[in-house]
């Protein structure tokens, strides 16, 4: 098995055992990138020179017998809306095409402190607004399972990178499902941590009260490892939680028998039959593990999409007001100030970003604020309380991760409403500040090619431990089911002599 084919846990074991050097690990993944990337377009930037320096630093530590860190020698792909000092941070937008981040995000410095190697910046929907990575200004990313389909979004690049073996782990951001949905579409694990658990400092803000940074990896353990490295209080982030964390890896294999799990029936509405089938078979699996499953109803879930789009757009319109071409970023040719703003923003932002800014501006305008923004904020409280009540009855809530499997490129992009309603299962988690894991549980065969289906496990705030524990148990119970198919898929991504690049 090549190094790039291994999980983070496996690679780490080899590095710590001194079987391989950090540099060799990096070599393997860079090779894989040159193989698979032309077909997938998962990366906006590959950061080879700085990665080499990082790797040699880690190797030196290992030689000296010093502690190389929790993630010694592991390459990590970073979504390109997270600042890595000295590297471009484009947010997949023409607005920031040439912008170099002058500082590291806290989550990045934590990774580097723990010996991780930043291998590259991955593609995303522009400014993290989207569910397919089709709104990127630097081309779409393809789904490794079927390159005519989207990898999901907005963290499509990170998910595709891990899924195809170009990086063992990646960081994504999740504002309405942007880690969980692409993880599900590409058959990998993705975790949205509790709001405030991972610092947002250095992460380009989309919606301040909804954004979360989280790991994407092949396995639950791999995600837990990254979470151990990046979580924790940061005084650069005023919303950072001061809660002490226990190791997320340490209790993964604890008993799950007796856990109470709820299925919100509202989450099953509109779910495609192939996905539902996969989901129900795994529910049965959970019951075999001794889990008590019950049906719940959370009526406020039917308003979740409206609440989400109003609040997220309002906050986004505010957070993106700083992009004006004055101090950094794209500046259009302009003779007056009005032109400077209007044209820089009008040509720098893509259509989806403009759409959301307009909705947000509308929702906050005098005369509309009460009807839209404030109402949405009140409905959000109602949703939070619905969840609180439910978590009084169950420990966890499960659902399919998405209502459908990966759709074809171009299929939904013209119909905003259709794209938005697809987020129904994921947005409530962000609205309520909860944590949730998305993990692969099987495949749909309804579309010609085999396409991954995912399970979402939702936990109470700060209860990542229980979420990960259940995920781990299910993963163990499934054995090699997912991995074997993934290996086959990865082998099919061979380098092609004549590559058709789609913009």
């Amino acid at each position: 098995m090549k190094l790039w084919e291994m999980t983070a846990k496996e690679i780490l074991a080899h590095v710590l055992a001194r079987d391989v050097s950090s540099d060799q690990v990096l070599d393997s993944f860079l090779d894989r990138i040159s193989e698979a990337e032309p077909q997938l377009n998962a990366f906006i930037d590959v950061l080879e020179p700085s990665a080499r320096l990082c790797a040699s630093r880690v190797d030196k530590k290992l030689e000296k017998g010093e502690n190389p860190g929790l993630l010694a020698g592991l390459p990590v792909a970073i979504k390109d809306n997270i600042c890595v000092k000295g590297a471009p941070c484009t947010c997949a937008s023409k607005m920031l095409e040439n912008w170099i981040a002058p500082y590291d995000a806290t989550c990045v410095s934590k990774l580097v402190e723990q010996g991780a190697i930043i291998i590259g910046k991955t593609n995303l929907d522009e400014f993290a607004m989207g569910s397919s990575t089709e709104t990127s200004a630097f081309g779409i990313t393809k789904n490794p399972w079927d390159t005519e389909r989207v990898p999901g979004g907005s963290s499509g690049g990170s998910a595709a990178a891990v899924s195809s073996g170009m990086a063992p782990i990646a960081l994504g951001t999740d504002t309405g499902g942007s880690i969980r949905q692409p993880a599900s579409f590409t058959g990998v694990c993705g975790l949205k941590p509790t709001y405030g658990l991972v610092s947002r400092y250095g992460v380009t803000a989309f919606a301040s009260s909804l954004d979360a940074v989280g790991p994407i990896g092949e396995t639950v353990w791999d995600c837990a490892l990254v979470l151990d490295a990046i979580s924790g209080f940061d005084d650069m982030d005023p919303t950072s939680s001061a809660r002490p964390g226990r190791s997320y890896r340490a209790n993964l294999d604890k008993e799950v028998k007796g856990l109470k799990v709820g299925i919100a029936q509202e989450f099953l509405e509109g779910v495609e039959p192939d996905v539902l089938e996969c989901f129900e078979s795994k529910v049965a699996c959970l019951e075999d593990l001794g889990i008590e499953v019950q049906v719940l109803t959370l009526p406020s879930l039917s308003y979740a999409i409206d609440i989400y789009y109003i609040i997220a757009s309002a906050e986004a319109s505010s957070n993106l007001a700083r992009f004006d071409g004055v101090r950094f970023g794209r500046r259009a040719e302009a003779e007056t100030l009005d032109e400077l703003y209007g044209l820089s923003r009008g040509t720098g932002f893509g259509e989806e970003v403009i759409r959301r800014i307009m909705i947000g501006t509308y929702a906050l305008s005098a005369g509309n604020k009460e009807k839209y923004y404030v109402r949405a904020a009140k409905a959000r409280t109602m949703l939070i309380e619905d969840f609180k009540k439910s978590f009084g009855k169950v420990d966890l809530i499960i659902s399919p991760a998405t209502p459908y499997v990966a759709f074809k490129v171009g299929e939904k992009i013209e119909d905003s409403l259709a794209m938005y309603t697809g987020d129904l299962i994921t947005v409530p988690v962000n609205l309520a500040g909860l944590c949730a894991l998305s993990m692969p549980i099987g495949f749909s065969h309804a579309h010609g090619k085999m396409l991954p289906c995912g399970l979402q496990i939702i936990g109470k705030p700060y209860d990542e431990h229980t979420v990960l524990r259940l995920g781990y148990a299910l993963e163990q119970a499934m054995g090699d089911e997912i991995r074997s198919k993934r290996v086959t898929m990865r082998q099919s991504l061979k380098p092609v002599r004549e590559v058709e690049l789609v913009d």
Partner: protein
Amino acid sequence: MELDITRLAHDAGITLPEEYKDDLANDLTSLLEHMKHLLKVDLEGYEPTFSMVESQQLRLFDDVVEQTLSSEVLFETAPSVDERYFKVPRESQGS
């Protein structure tokens, strides 16, 4: 309420590309229509949630100077710099 897309774009600081101005107007109208669902639900007794940190306290920092970055770095990535100033066109008169 008729959506005044020109006024909205102005408030948002965006000059809308002509190509999709009309499509965008239609799009927004239908999206906003959909969001009106929220007008039907009874929200009596619910306080609005404006952030996820309502129950936390603002942390306050000591008033000690710390220079984290040199201005030179910020000048490097600026679109237009004149001596040590950032330069922009002047506000159009009578606006």
